[in-house]
């Protein structure tokens, strides 16, 4: 029972981290149909920049802010210099961003070396808290990530559904030309969306790097994780990313706890299964061509 409960919590808190990375990916794809396979590189680069900031200033909080903002800026650059020129060309976007991620991985290896880094989290989120109704204690930091994910999820939903900019973004997805004709700067709008998506990857990089460490190879790992989460849940849907993250996080942790030998295989099988029977993902709408 204890193992079950702990594994459940581990799965949910891991899902929190996956949601943070994947929601940015989903936002960019769902609204602009941009496939950014360099999303994992944004995660790792954000984490590294956050770490360098943390080392220079000693402030973890500043690391979080700088890691997030720097990647938001990188997102704007990506949209402005790359994606603007290949709207709607899925295969080309896929290939260009794969190439970018290869170059980025090698340059990061050059600058930060091959050793692993880990943040020291500040005291207010270190240690463990007692779980109500149980004798168990659970790490505060993991719960904090879960809380952060829930907050970000709600904020994103409100942004898209309740704000003027959000409405414009959604309108831009349905009919870009009409939106442009009504006087809205579509490119600016898309840059803002990309900045949010990329910034979330940077944020996740710092938060993830604080308990999973940053090292070469983490970019690919989190790219794969976000892809699976987003595709299982349904591309472009914030709710879908949430469902996908929970499903994948739980699968991974229950796999590790009860049948570790094939733990990494299960998540991929879930993906194959979902796509085979519901190609648009669990809550995704069918793609209109």
């Amino acid at each position: 029972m204890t193992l079950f409960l702990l594994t459940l919590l581990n799965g949910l808190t891991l899902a929190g981290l996956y949601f943070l990375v994947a929601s940015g990916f989903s936002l960019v794809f769902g609204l602009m149909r941009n496939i950014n396979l360099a999303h994992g590189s944004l995660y790792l680069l954000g984490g590294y920049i956050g770490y360098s900031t943390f080392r220079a200033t000693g402030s973890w909080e500043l690391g979080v802010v700088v890691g997030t903002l720097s990647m938001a800026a990188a997102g704007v650059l990506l949209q402005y210099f790359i994606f603007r020129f290949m709207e709607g060309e899925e295969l080309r976007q896929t290939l260009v961003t794969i190439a970018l991620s290869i170059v980025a991985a090698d340059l990061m290896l050059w600058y930060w070396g091959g050793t692993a880094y880990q943040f020291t989290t500040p005291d207010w989120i270190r240690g463990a808290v007692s779980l109500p109704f149980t004798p168990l204690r659970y790490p505060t930091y993991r719960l904090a990530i879960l809380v952060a994910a829930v907050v970000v999820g709600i904020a994103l939903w409100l942004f898209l559904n309740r704000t003027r900019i959000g409405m414009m973004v959604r309108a831009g997805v349905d009919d870009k030309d009409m939106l442009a004709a009504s006087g809205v700067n579509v490119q600016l709008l898309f840059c803002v969306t990309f900045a949010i998506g990329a910034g979330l990857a940077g944020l996740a990089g710092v938060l993830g790097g604080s308990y999973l460490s940053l090292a070469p190879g983490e970019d690919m790992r989190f790219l794969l994780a976000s892809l699976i989460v987003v595709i299982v849940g349904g591309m472009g849907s914030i709710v879908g990313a949430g469902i996908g993250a929970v499903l994948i996080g739980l699968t991974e942790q229950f796999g590790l706890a009860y049948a570790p030998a094939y733990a990494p295989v299960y998540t991929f099988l879930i993906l194959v299964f979902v796509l085979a029977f519901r190609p648009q993902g669990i809550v995704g709408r069918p793609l209109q061509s």
Partner: protein
Amino acid sequence: MASVLDETPRTNDGTLARLVRSLRWYYVAMIAFLLIYPLITGGFWTVQIGAQTLILGTIALSLMLLAGYGGMVSLSQLTIAGLAGYMIAVFGGASGGLGLGWPPFVAIPMAIAVATLFATLVGVISVRTEGIYTIMITLAVGMAFYFFVLQNREIFNAFDGFAGLRPPLVLGINMREANNFYFFCLAIAGFGYCLVLYLSRAPFGLALQAVRDNPRRMRALGFNIQAHRVAAHALAGFLAALGGMLLVWMNGQISPGSVGIAPLISILIIAILGGIRHPVGPFIGALIFVLLDNFAMQLIGGDRFNTVIGLIFLVIVLFSPDGVLGLWKMFRNRLRRQPQDSVESRTE
């Protein structure tokens, strides 16, 4: 080659004449070059550069068939090749007394058959998806396979994989000898090339291309588009399996690293680098890739060779969606200044 062409539904007279007419001087030069190549180079250039280019080209060719004609970009072609290689080890036996030790004339066809069957299955699962989803489901199949072989000891011998895999003696010819192995690879690559080229004009290939361009109309015309796509996966899987068989013989071993994410993406890079509009593209891509892979470190003289490989790839995909073939076409068109050339190719 002739036998392949004989099976065309077109009238037999004129086929040979058409073939002779279509033979340009550069075809003859190319074939002659490929045939004398191993005689003028050493073992390294024959196997590591020559044979490896042909092998990776053949695997990438299977992707070209799917992506170019069928519009389905599959990342699992190397997985299928890897499965064929694994099965050759499992059925045929490997060093350390592993494997079943069946004779080669049973083990090899069985291995190819298992891989082709698996490819068909991947096809059945993935044809319901489109675009990026197809890329992702095939990537997921590839990664699931990688993690499975990494952990499975009973069949795939886990992390260690299989070693001591060597081509068998065929009719007393020693395939382990560099030149013989090269010619064997050349024969298989040539077979694949002709097959795919033939498909571009055969009814099945034409239907596949029509399904790619307008699935709705093809369905209305009474074509079973899913069946066409699955068949394409099966055929491409067969080609990839042949490539995988050669690859495992060239390396003499196979382990999870052979089917990891890096080689999976390499096959995509190779196909795209060369161009997926014509079956020669994957071989051009493979040549560039193999040369870069072997000599980038020496040419650049530092540790940043992966940056250079990535940048070359980036520049090509940024400026020419059709890879090197596309660059070549642009270059030729500009040189000739014949605008109707592009119109021609569109109405083909």
